[in-house]
């Protein structure tokens, strides 16, 4: 009976929960896309930048990776308003997750570019390719394949971290569920439900990642 009752409650609250899920997906997608774009730049500077630029970006990356995401979210929401940058909870949350994502992607990109043997660059140079030609035709296609599995893991980390935005009042899936619990007191069932939905989301991401990995795999 308990399960039937829980399902009934979930069904009754379906629109609110779907709105929460929608927010979770939107926040995650935006953070991952912007974080990846920024992360590519971070990775390129860490690999090819001049020493001063590299030092600055290294500090940026180390600082962000050494800070809990939760602290980062609170900082973006509360501290930025002190210096007169007014962001909504939604914007501040996405901003924090983007920064967090960029530092991780930056390190992954750095690692991948460093892992490509020097002979690849030399062979590209020997057929007259410039730096850009070498990068886009030879290094990037190989680096992206190496990055993919770790990048997928980072993406699932962002989806999980998006739940922390509930603390600053963003109604994503977790806060949506908590609001239903506040009305119904079915905490066990509904938290289980939330966990299951997050699992499904990340499972889908992992599967999609594997699919792309197989599609772009180099025949050998």
């Amino acid at each position, binding site marked *: 009976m308990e399960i039937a009752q829980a399902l009934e409650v979930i069904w009754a609250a379906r629109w609110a929960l779907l709105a929460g899920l929608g927010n979770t997906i939107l926040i995650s997608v935006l953070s991952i896309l912007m974080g990846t774009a920024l992360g590519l730049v971070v990775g390129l500077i860490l690999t090819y930048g001049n020493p001063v630029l590299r030092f600055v970006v290294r500090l940026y990356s180390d600082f962000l990776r050494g800070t809990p995401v939760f602290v980062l979210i609170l900082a973006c929401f509360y501290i930025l308003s002190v210096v007169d940058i007014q962001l909504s909870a939604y914007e501040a949350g996405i901003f924090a997750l983007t920064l967090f994502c960029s530092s991780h992607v930056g390190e992954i990109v750095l690692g991948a570019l460093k892992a490509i043997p020097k002979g690849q660059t030399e*062979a590209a140079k*020997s*057929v007259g390719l410039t730096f850009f030609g070498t990068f886009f035709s030879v290094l990037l296609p190989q680096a992206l394949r190496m990055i993919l599995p770790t990048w997928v893991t980072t993406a699932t980390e962002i989806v999980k971290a998006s739940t922390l935005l509930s603390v600053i009042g963003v109604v994503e899936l977790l806060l949506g569920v908590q609001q239903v619990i506040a009305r119904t007191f079915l905490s066990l069932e509904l938290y289980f439900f939330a966990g299951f939905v997050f699992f499904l989301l990340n499972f889908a991401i992992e599967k999609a990642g594997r699919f792309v990995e197989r599609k772009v795999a180099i025949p050998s």
Partner: protein
Amino acid sequence: MSVPVLEITNLHKRFGDVEVLKGIDLTMQRGDVVSLIGSSGSGKTTLLRCVNLLEDYEEGIVAVAGEQIGYRQQNGRRVRLREREIARQRAMTGMTFQHFNLFPHMSAIRNVMLGLVRTRKMPKDEAYATAETWLDRVGMKDRKDHFPGQLSGGQQQRVAIARAIAMNPELMLFDEVTSALDPELVSEVLAVVKGLAADGMTMLLVTHEMQFAHDVSDRVVFMQDGRIGEEGPPDTLFHNPKSERLAAFLKSSKF
């Protein structure tokens, strides 16, 4: 006499405090095949890599077809050329590497096409036809759609040779083309190189295959301690070495 294909004058190269090339002079005319031999650390590979500026050099001049590679003189000072200019100059020479360095994410034919399309600005269908011709020449046409990971070492090296030579370079540089190959794969690659030599290709080779150097070269250069120790036609150099160092080297190479 026409402009030499390669003219190296008083070339010096340092790695930090260590001087690895201590004043090299070498001239090659069109169609010359020159082999560089010598023990490890004698500077053979570094010399080869200075010719297409995979290594910068500190002093002296390397000129391909009369054009100084990598630098120009301005008010008595040497100034490094811009990246784009250097890229253009690198395409004047073709190079193959000890470890082939094929692009693993591209099929054999796309490996050969890359330089033709990106550097020579050849239309794709023309590049495809050119690449196919050269793959055929090295006996790899039937494997043109294979990826490097699906080819043996010898096959990969043959594709690498096609990739370099399809660019129609003034000069081919071969850096120990067979030293990473299993013994049974050496001959197929050497046969390709010999064929190119017979066609009149100008070639500078670094090799540990003494018999091959003897058979294919017009001239052999023995390097020791960053200098040219001895230089001459293969018969003279291999059968009547002047220095004890060369005699000892040939003996240790079981020639």
